[in-house]
């Protein structure tokens, strides 16, 4: 992570455009309420120049509301937004500096592709020739030079979205806002276009915020992800940080898949799940405290078939967190096997584990068999649980 995230309110009066290390976009104590409903609750966030940020969260979490506040389309109730050192908190949309792309493309249907891209360039003192050359340059950038004279309805969804992107960057905005730009597209086009957008963003170096509810998209594209839920920011971090070290149970659950078990902290470094003790980091937890223990299916390591089932359930915790489990179900998902295991030591709960095709073959894992699996101690995460 190149730039430290700041959640402390920062002094906002100083002009900081000259300071390259200063955040480009700075959101401080932002609230948005619709009547009694609070859509955004005390949001603070700093974004560095050139960063690609994803707002990720389930629908209704406030991510689009936050984007629209930055755009000046839906004014926040309270809070300040600084862009390049300029206080834009209450500026109308037309006085801010950004380009925007919507899920619906919002291309003007009665204008040709060229006219659409030129829409923001005309009326700005540029000569006709300058506009035309900029338009053809942009068409080339998005790889649609042959389609300039067509109307939007004659292009595919992916092509239309590229035109919308070209139109948004035509005026060389300081900030590019993407509101679920890929959600309306087919899966294949979506994957293809997400690489293109990312490459274009790198090339232009434009600070970009993308709203999405697709975690894969966010993980693949973002420099940093802002995970949101119920109008608050749950976590901000790089894709690997978010995935490997989710700070809240919500983030752990929302990104990737999880097994969740009710747990209780026995002493430092040891928790009780079901009837047995397991080793894991317990920083911040007191002995006796109730918690939720989380482990991802992919993190569970198979250690092979066990000749004789070890059914003792009161074994002390070992550093390896080894348990015996019976394979109840196996589901072939192409890249891996999803298995459902039951282990006496975990109580009656099912443990979902994803094993590679190789591992399954090598260890002869099959339905009905008993295997030994390891829950790596550094991959067993604890979250507070309200009793």
């Amino acid at each position: 992570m190149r730039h430290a995230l700041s959640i402390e309110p920062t002094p906002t009066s100083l002009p900081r455009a000259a300071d390259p290390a200063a955040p480009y976009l700075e959101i401080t104590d932002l609230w948005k309420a619709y009547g009694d409903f609070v859509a955004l609750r005390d949001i603070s966030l700093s974004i560095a120049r050139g960063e690609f940020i994803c707002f990720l969260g389930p629908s209704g979490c406030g991510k689009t509301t936050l984007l629209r506040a930055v755009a000046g389309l839906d004014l926040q109730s309270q809070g300040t937004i600084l862009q390049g050192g300029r206080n834009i908190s209450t500026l109308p949309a037309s006085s801010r500096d950004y380009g925007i792309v919507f899920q619906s493309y919002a291309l003007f249907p009665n204008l040709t592709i060229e006219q659409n891209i030129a829409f923001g360039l005309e009326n700005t003192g540029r000569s006709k020739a300058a506009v035309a050359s900029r338009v053809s340059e942009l068409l080339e950038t998005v790889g649609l030079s042959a389609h300039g004279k067509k109307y939007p309805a004659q292009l595919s969804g992916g092509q239309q979205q590229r035109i919308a992107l070209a139109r948004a960057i035509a005026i060389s905005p300081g900030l590019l806002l993407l509101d679920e730009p890929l959600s309306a597209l087919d899966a294949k086009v979506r994957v293809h276009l997400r690489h293109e957008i990312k490459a274009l963003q790198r090339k232009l170096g434009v600070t970009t915020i993308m709203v999405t509810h697709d975690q894969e998209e966010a993980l693949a594209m973002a420099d940093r992800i802002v995970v949101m839920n119920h109008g608050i920011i749950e976590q901000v971090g790089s894709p690997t940080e978010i995935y490997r070290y989710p700070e809240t149970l919500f983030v752990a659950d929302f990104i990737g898949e999880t097994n969740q078990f009710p747990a209780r902290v026995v002493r430092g470094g040891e928790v009780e799940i079901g009837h047995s003790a397991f080793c894991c980091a317990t920083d911040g937890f007191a002995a006796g405290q109730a918690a939720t223990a989380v482990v991802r299916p992919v993190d569970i390591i198979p250690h092979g078939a066990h000749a004789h089932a070890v059914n003792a359930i009161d074994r002390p915790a070992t550093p390896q967190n080894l348990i015996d489990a019976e394979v109840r179900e196996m589901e072939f998902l192409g890249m891996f096997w999803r298995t459902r295991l039951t282990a006496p030591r975990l109580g009656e709960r099912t443990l979902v584990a994803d094993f590679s095709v190789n591992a399954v073959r090598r260890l002869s894992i099959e339905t009905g068999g008993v295997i030994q699996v390891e829950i790596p101690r550094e991959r067993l995460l604890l979250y507070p649980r309200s009793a």
Partner: protein
Amino acid sequence: MAIALETAHPPLAGKHLRQQTSRDDRIKLGFMAVIGLYLVIALGAPLFVMLSKSLSTYRFDLTAYEFQVSDGTGANWGPVVTADALNRQAGAVAEADLSTNSDGRLAATKFFPEFSFRSPVNYRIRGVDEDAAFLVGSTLEKGTAWREYDSGTFRRVVLRPARTIGLENFSNYFSTPALAQSIYNSVLMAAISTVVTVSIAFALAYGLTRSCMPLKGLFRGILTIPILVPSLLPGIALVYLFGNQGVFKDWLLGYSIYGPIGIVIGSVFFTLPHAFLIILTALSVADARHYEAAASLKASKWRTFRTVTVPGARYGIVSAAFVVFTLVITDFGLPKVIGGQYGMLAVDIYKQVIGQQNFEMGAVVSVILLVPAVLAFAVDRRMQKRQVALLSARAVPYAPKPNVRVDAPCFAFACLVSLFILGMIAMCQVAAVVKFWPYDLTLTTKNFAFDLMDGGGWAAYGNSIRLALLTALFGSLVVFAGAYMVEKADGFRFGRGLFHFLAMMPMAVPGMVLGLAYIFFFNNPANPLNPIYGTMTILVVCTVTHFYTVAHLTALTALKQMDPEFESVAASLKQPFHRLFFRVTVPVCLPAILNIAIYLFVNAMTTVSAVVFLYATDTKLASVAVLNMDDAGDIAPAAAMGMMIFYTNVAAKLIHALIARGLLARTQAWR
């Protein structure tokens, strides 16, 4: 940085931020204020004045005036007496005559039987309170101070009535049997016409959507013809067909066409297209999968009809019923021509106002007429909202399969109804060009020599065209700009809501009521807008307002189909809203705008109800001329003028189709 929910956050207190207004916002706000003001002046204020008029009664309050009379020297004054006491002594004015209207005047000398204007006696007059008013000549005097006049001047003193607010006018109305009977008559006629029209319309729409009968396009065209003629025209046709000299008079078995029979037949004629189009739309959205499901469950044809077809169209049917009911109960032209002595509410307004100059009673009838219209409107709006919820994006359009047993009766029925419509029009056409139906059938153009008849002559026809063109032009501009503000301006939520409400209101206001409200509002010398009274301007304003709602909804529908983010994109590209408006919004919505224009044109040509109160000698209109010539007994010229309106509307429709095709080819290449 997990921000846990339970962290103590200050509640969202203090003032919410306000966005700095951009130049666009200010322009939009200005526009909205202008168009909102237009609707307030053209609709809200006149209706309010009318309502207050219906609640106002005027009466001379004799206890409010005191007199003193001098002796022959003019210097020694007698005792102070009230006008009331004087009146009781002299018995000059009967109790009933004290009720009057807003223009009432009562000469003060009436209370002094011995009054002579050459006597040396002087008179003093004053009010007992500040409101008692009287005129001396044309000078208004008020108040409790004594005023002294010599007998020559006192002759010119007249008392003015006091205005009280109350329901007295309404109780008067209901105690007049002939007037109260009109309510029953109107409701009865509207109810019968509704049942008949909706049944016919449903059968026709069913045939067009669920059978494979031939000539569907032709029937659809014929069925919309009645929209192009004034509602008076079917009345005239009926007079020719079944009237005293009618060729088919015997068909009525001795009953007279003048009255309920004529009203129902004529109402069916002019309301049929409205009901037909609504039900056709409702039936068109049928989902084929429902029919497939019914067939796979082995439901009989009749059961399918009852459980799939009718419920699917039920909101359309209810909506059509309310539209027809409102049209019939508020229509004035048809019962005027064919109603004979059969009293109807809308005609009552006309008679009270034009015949008896009783404006307060006209206002009372108007308010009564507003009740069913507003009710029908409210129910209809609820229905429309539910209808929308019925539509599903994944519906599969239903395609009927040929079936002689269904197709043949549908075709026969459509032929029959078409014959009825074409027959009525043909009758007027024949009446217009023959010398004397049915006795002398030689062709003539004398019926078109309008300048020789009362009613306004060819100038009236010219005025109508002018009115229709101005209404179409001015109306489409105002309506589209207004709808744009409602739909696309952000912020000003309250203003936009109010504006939308005002725009929806004209649908519930009958034309007669609007016309009368305009008299009250604009024909008041104290109103700064009084100069437009009696001009073409007021006719245009009135007609645009009268037909505002349908046009507004058309514009709104077109605007709603546009991506709501266009405005956001334009703002992010720093383009002013008017550039987006003219380069994108207007071109994309052009078909809807042209539809609004032709709708306003056709209605401006045919409307009678609102404008009948508002035309002046130099702004007579063709539709009113039809009415007046018919009234004067010149029925053939009335039919001829009615046909002129019909030709004009047909021509306008053709030109509209041509323009639409030409313009669309240029501006809608993307479609």
